[in-house]
């Protein structure tokens, strides 16, 4: 009887430790290999957030999205580069921060390039500084580039 209790406790302890180790070692998947939940065009996407930010946030936040559009500018972000697609009329924009293993891809993108970028959407916010709205992405990767 004692032996059974001891074995049960040991198995539970081992499972608990394995569970903790598993959670601690979880890592985000490679964005290039992730399947996009949505495929969108940059200007339509920007307008969707400008039209109803709450609704768009519910629909797109933390989803993997593939965005096609023209690069309006590239910006130095510490030692890396962010890619921007801006609506020049409203000043509203999408900004993409790249996944660590794909930082080099961002440096190969130039203003004016037509690209498809895939990443995790962090939703849209209204900026009091810029008086415009922005949608930010993290863990991005370049899927296509047409000059």
């Amino acid at each position: 009887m004692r032996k059974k209790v001891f074995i049960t406790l040991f198995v539970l302890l081992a499972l608990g430790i394995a569970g903790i180790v598993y959670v601690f070692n979880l890592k985000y998947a490679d964005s290039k290999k992730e399947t996009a939940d949505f495929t969108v065009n940059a200007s339509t996407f920007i307008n969707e957030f400008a039209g109803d930010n709450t609704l768009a946030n519910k629909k797109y936040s933390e989803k993997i999205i593939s965005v096609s559009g023209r690069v309006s500018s590239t910006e130095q972000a510490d030692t890396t580069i962010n890619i921007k697609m801006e609506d020049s009329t409203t000043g509203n924009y999408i900004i993409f921060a790249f996944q660590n293993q794909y930082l080099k891809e961002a440096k190969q993108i130039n203003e004016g390039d037509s690209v498809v970028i895939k990443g995790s959407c962090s939703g849209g916010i209204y900026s009091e500084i810029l008086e415009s709205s922005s949608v930010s992405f993290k863990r991005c990767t370049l899927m296509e580039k047409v000059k």
Partner: protein
Amino acid sequence: MKKTAFLFVLSLVTCFAFAQKKLVTTSATISFDATTSIDALPKATNKTVIASLATKTGDIAFEAAIKNFAFTNPKIQEHFNGEGWMNSDKFATATFKGKITDLTKVNFSKNGSYSVPVSGTLMIHGESNPVTSTATIVVEGKKISTSSNFSIALEDYKVKGGAIGAGKVAKNPTITVQADFN
């Protein structure tokens, strides 16, 4: 003589215009480190922070989308954004509004590295608190880089959770801010 006078006036006007400039970037970075001796995971960086610096008045502002803090571990990111922590669905941004309190410590028209006092209001999780820190400003031609390190008490921003009590998340995480204006 006339040409010299013209050039002198032109350079003054240029300096004056430059001194008044409000600089803006949408790619400032904010990192926070809440790691402890028993948990190395609670740290993240947001590389798409909106920042502005008015060189004439010394006004500084930052806006960061909470959901764009990128963690390496999906579970930690989920906890961070959840209702029990940052509740980023409700409190989507963290903001700082402040100023360089002694503008005589920096010359935006002269290359160099300057240490300046900064104070303002930091709003996280819907809670605002005064913050005072020292920032480093590096002027290099037209490029102005600003950076600062400071720590905050999570308690002041009503960020609570069992993980803090259990020692897995630091009570006073360090925040690093970097903004490059070109």
